[in-house]
């Protein structure tokens, strides 16, 4: 365990990660798992399962429900956190709110919830997110200000995530299509192995879902992974974003539906309810980068976090990074001098195989770090990091307790 520089922004108290639960991630299409299920109902399922796993915590003692969604309309509207407190039957006294930082929605929810605990304002907070991209196709419900383009504030490509990934290839010529496909294949393989090993049983709960054709059915495993994917399969795919481009459906995250969240607690709550937390939030960063190459965000976010703590990349026992695009991941690995198959980076695979329901994904990353800690008793420090649309990077430093 390295010495951490704790002289900067020492918190008043700790925010402990107690537990996390998510539903299997579905494909965002008419025949996907959740085509006939509401986004808020998915979230209710996760919240109730989380509370059932922690029966000592009285539901009405939850101080806040912080829930992220990028599209805050329809079944993701009506101030989700508060809606969910009511729908999940937590009691009228439990407040909540919705927030949005695009892909880092749930990551921000965890940070905000953690901060409320760290300053001593709250003791038990549910933080998570949902994105039903089948009901809310990306960008379909927004109206970008024309000044973005007329004032040349951003390039037109900045608003289409796949184009930003192609831009990243331009920026990092060493990140070739082939290396990206190789990385993507690794993601599929790692997810397949983790599934076979029952890794996700730690935080995935089944759900009963409605389909007009089939009636009710039970879903238990992620729908997105394509086991048996080969390099041959991947190289055949073409980029929809640019003629001769490198970014394909095979080396990018999918369009998905998913929901889940975590329970964070103060030291006092941990003691009062006899909880056994896995880890605590040590620090976090958010940074801004060029919107046209938003995928570079994790690099400065991580640099800033490591620098502040006086750590180097090698001090981290596990890194869980959102795989929006393989190019973004490979650029990150190159920057920190890590190999494509670094064993402690996304050890259970990532969004390329599992899918990326935008605002939800940050919660999944935290759950996978916690699962890694549980399975690897020597691991002390973990990092979750994400790139974010419109050019941001986000990171949380986790420490085992």
């Amino acid at each position, binding site marked *: 365990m390295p010495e951490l520089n704790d002289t900067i922004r020492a918190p008043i108290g700790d925010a402990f990660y107690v537990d996390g639960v998510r539903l299997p991630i579905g494909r965002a299409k008419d025949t996907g798992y959740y085509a006939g299920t509401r986004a808020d109902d998915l979230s*209710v*399922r996760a919240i*109730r*399962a989380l509370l*059932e796993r922690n029966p000592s915590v009285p539901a009405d003692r939850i101080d806040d429900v912080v829930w992220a969604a990028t599209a805050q309309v329809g079944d993701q509207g009506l101030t989700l956190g508060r809606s969910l407190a009511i*729908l*999940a*039957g937590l009691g009228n006294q439990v407040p909540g709110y919705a927030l949005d930082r695009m892909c880092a929605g749930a990551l921000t929810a965890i940070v905000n919830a953690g901060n409320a605990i760290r300053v001593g304002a709250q003791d038990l907070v549910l933080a998570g997110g949902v994105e039903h991209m089948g009901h809310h196709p990306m960008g379909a419900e927004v109206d970008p200000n024309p000044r973005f383009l007329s004032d040349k504030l951003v390039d037109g490509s900045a608003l289409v995530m796949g184009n930003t990934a192609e831009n990243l290839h331009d920026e990092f010529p060493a990140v070739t299509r082939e290396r990206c496909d190789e990385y993507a294949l690794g993601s599929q393989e790692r997810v397949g192995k983790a599934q076979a090993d029952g890794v996700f*049983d730690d935080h995935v*709960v*089944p*759900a*009963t879902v*409605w389909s*007009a*054709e*089939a*009636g*009710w*059915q*039970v879903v*238990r495993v992620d729908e997105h992974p394509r086991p048996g994917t080969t390099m041959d399969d991947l190289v055949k795919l073409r980029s929809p974003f640019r003629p001769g481009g490198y970014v394909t459906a095979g080396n990018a995250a999918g369009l998905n539906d998913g929901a889940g969240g975590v329970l964070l607690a103060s030291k006092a709550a941990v003691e009062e309810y006899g909880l056994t937390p896995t880890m605590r939030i040590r620090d976090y960063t958010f940074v801004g980068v060029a919107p046209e190459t938003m995928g570079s965000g994790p690099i400065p976010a991580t640099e800033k976090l490591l620098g502040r703590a006086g750590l180097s990349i090698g001090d981290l026992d596990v890194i869980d990074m959102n795989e929006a695009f393989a190019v973004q991941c490979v650029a990150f690995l190159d920057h920190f001098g890590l190999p494509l198959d670094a064993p402690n980076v996304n050890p259970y695979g990532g969004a390329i195989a599992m899918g990326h329901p935008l605002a939800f994904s940050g919660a999944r990353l935290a759950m996978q770090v916690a699962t890694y800690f549980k399975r690897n008793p020597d691991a002390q420090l973990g990092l979750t990091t994400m790139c974010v649309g419109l050019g941001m990077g986000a990171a949380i430093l986790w420490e085992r307790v």
Partner: protein
Amino acid sequence: MTDAYTQFKLTYDASPTAGRLAVLTMDNGQDYKKPNTFGAQALGSLSDALDELATQTDVKGLLLTGKHFIFAVGADLTQFTGMDAEGARAGGRGGHEVFARLMDLPFPTLAAINGACMGGGLEIALHCDYRTVSTGAAAVAFPEVFLSILPGWGGTQLAPRIAGAQNAVDAIVVNALNNNKVMKPREAFERGFADRLIDSAVFLDESLALLERLVTGDETIAREVDPTAGLDEALANARAFADAKVHGATRAPYLALELIEFAARGGDLAEGREREADALAELLPADQAQASVYAFDLVQSRAKKQPWRPDAQPRRLGKVAVVGAGLMGAQLGSLHLQRLELPLVMKDIDEGVLGRCREHIEGELDKLVAKGRIKPGKAEFLKGLVTYTTSYEDVRGADWVIEAVLERMDLKQAIFADLEEVLDEGAILATNTSSLSVGEMASKLAHPERVLGFHFFNPVAILPLVEVIRPEGVADEAMATAFDVAKKLKKTGVQCADRPAFIVNRLLSRFNGTAVQALRRGNDFKQIDEAIKGLGLPMGPFELFGLVGLKVAFHTAETLAEAYPDRFVIDDNFAAIANSDLPGVYDWSAGGEVYAQVRELVEVDEGATPLTDDEIRRMALEAAADECGRMLDDGTVADARDIDTGMIMGAGFPFFMGGLCKHLDQTGISQAVVGRTLITAEDHAQS
């Protein structure tokens, strides 16, 4: 629509603990307003699903559930119309056969009652090994006996085995006869119709988890029911209750009790099923069930669609007023306030009356607070909406004004004239008169087209009918508003032309007039009441006089005698009793005996012989048939179904009589008296 039937959709789940589980969903592909029902196609679909399951050797358990908000609400009633005995028996056996296959599946089965679960829906659930019920399920019930049939797909045989005799009797017979009361989820659970009550937010997930534990043996559900416990008492009480409610006029509750008793005493299940099929063969083709299906459609479907409502935009209401704050006015004010939640003006000439009105209206709100139905702040808000006044100025700006003053034409005309001074041109004037001419009341106004009748029944809070009187020349907007208000007040509005005493009072007056005539023949009050109740009516004529008030009943009779002297004759006995100043015929403070003074007032014709019960009933029904025929001929109503809706909702005539006209048609009395059926084939075609 006719293509939509309930399909049984099968999916499978690979449970890591329990192994392969089947999930069987009942879904008719429609939204929750069109609930899952069972007809031949649905049973065929279930049979197909069971065939498919039989080919799956590795299934370890089955979860049966419904679509959103609905489990299943039982047989499709529309298929019952005109069904013969063999069809009924075959329908019963068809359900038995396929439900028995579900019951005989070689692995644990769990019915997850996620929503409304009635009749055949509850029966299919009882054929599963276990049941969960969601806190969000709207109702769990056996409504069959209410419709003069009985649960014929194993319900009478399984309910006592699973929930015990008392609960089976209550659910199948007592509740059904008690205005078709339903069990809420907690009650269904507490009475043993479900093994677990599960929060709606996690219902299916938790039900599935329970099934997994039942399959693995991690959880067991033991049900120790002695079906004979309390059986004799339950049966005796229920028979007495049925006698009081239907007076033997429909066989359904009695047959249901026999079947429950058979099962509770350990009767063989297969034989019990066969007895159910026999009972269906007897009951379904019978007049009572056929009339019930007809009545159910009238009340649940036709009346709710308000076929009389003109295609005009109702007036938007911002303020309402009641003129005349006496006993009736106060009830009307209370109802309007609670249901419309609009500024309300109570206008009267007497401060004392207004004070008592205020006590009534505020007292009713306080009762709601005490019952926890509304919060104190809401009650204060509603109280604050009311103005009690002696000045017409305060009525200014009201959009809907209903008068409930004394039944005097000159008084009502004067009040309407005063109201017109302060009201906007489009404001609507409604009268709660029970017998006066609405057109005449309006005739002196500058805008007579704004006046209509809106006749409630006492007690207003309980009786669901309001007769909406349509005078000649009334504005469509006024009528549309009246039907709109009726709906918002949660009352069933039935349209009636501007004829003396409208529908219900005119018919009751004629019908009950025969009871008064019977007195003259030497029949006794009680015998007459019992004879009439033998039709299945909740009350006899003389009991009813006591409820509505002798003077009110007599006033209606007078009005009708004036309008139709050929057949409405004021009997001296009735006049003498009505003028006696007694509260009614029976002294309820003395065990319901007839007041001695009343007895002394009755004069019996010289040499008259008392009528038999049958003759009393026949006389009443023939008079009613004659009057129904005249109502159709003189345009009081356009359709005999309007009469039936009125008699069911306003006079408590039973479903199994189909109100009144249906019964008169079924028994041939209308043909004998009027020369035709009252309900025409065309009426049926429209329903």
